[in-house]
């Protein structure tokens, strides 16, 4: 069920949408992954680590 739902949200079998930005060309999927990595990186820097406040 979950794979079916995910497949309905993101169809990985279709032709990818390519973002054109000057000289830069990148598929939307790769752009989303890079953006997600930046978000995770920033959250990792800012989010409190469990147990750190005890010291």
């Amino acid at each position, binding site marked *: 069920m979950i794979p079916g739902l995910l497949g309905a949200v993101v169809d990985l079998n279709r032709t990818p949408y390519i973002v054109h930005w000057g000289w830069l060309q990148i598929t939307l999927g790769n752009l989303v992954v890079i953006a997600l990595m930046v978000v995770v990186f920033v959250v*990792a820097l800012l989010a409190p680590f469990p147990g750190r406040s005890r010291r």
Partner: protein
Amino acid sequence: MSRSWTGRLRRVVVRDLPPEKLLPDEQPAWVSSWAYVFGALTIGALLVVILSGMALAFEGPTWWHTSSAGLFVNSLHLWSVELFFFFMVLHLWAQFFMASWRGGRSFTWMVGAIAFVASIGTAFTGYLSQQNFDSQWIGTQAKDGLNAAGIGAFFNVLDFGQMLLWHVMLLPLALAVLVGLHLLLVRKHGVVEPLPARTGGRIDASADVGAVGRTEPTEAP
């Protein structure tokens, strides 16, 4: 004192990697940050990659292309590779902005960088080993670039047998050695401390977050 190579090797290993360094149960206080978790997550993803890859190697292409279990393990292999690269790049960013080559750790940094390149080669040959239209497309696109680079004569991306053996034998072996060496070097030199905080252009070593000198131990995550 023995002058044999085994004796010399034992003395070097015992000196550089005593048990408390090899399997530490305490870490410096600055390690209590999510930024230090990405390396461990990369190793975790790599273990899933290796285990799912071994299952694929045992069963073969017909299994991974046609049966439900084979398709599941095939997908597991793909998505664990995606996570492996996801976390490895985050680990690279964290270590780069921390200048983790400081304090005699330049060899650790270089081994990690070479492991990153070896990972790209391993993933690339994996895409070429899928035995579907994707792999044919990638192979025919890549051959021009590799021929232009002058290595197409002995690394033929259109030779499925060669690419499969690179993917399941040579590159995983190299990657395992590099990752193992990287881990041992991290254990030998310890986890790098954060950069000292800068306040108004001056380095403030007494600042709280990540300050050098906060060395009270904490339990390893």
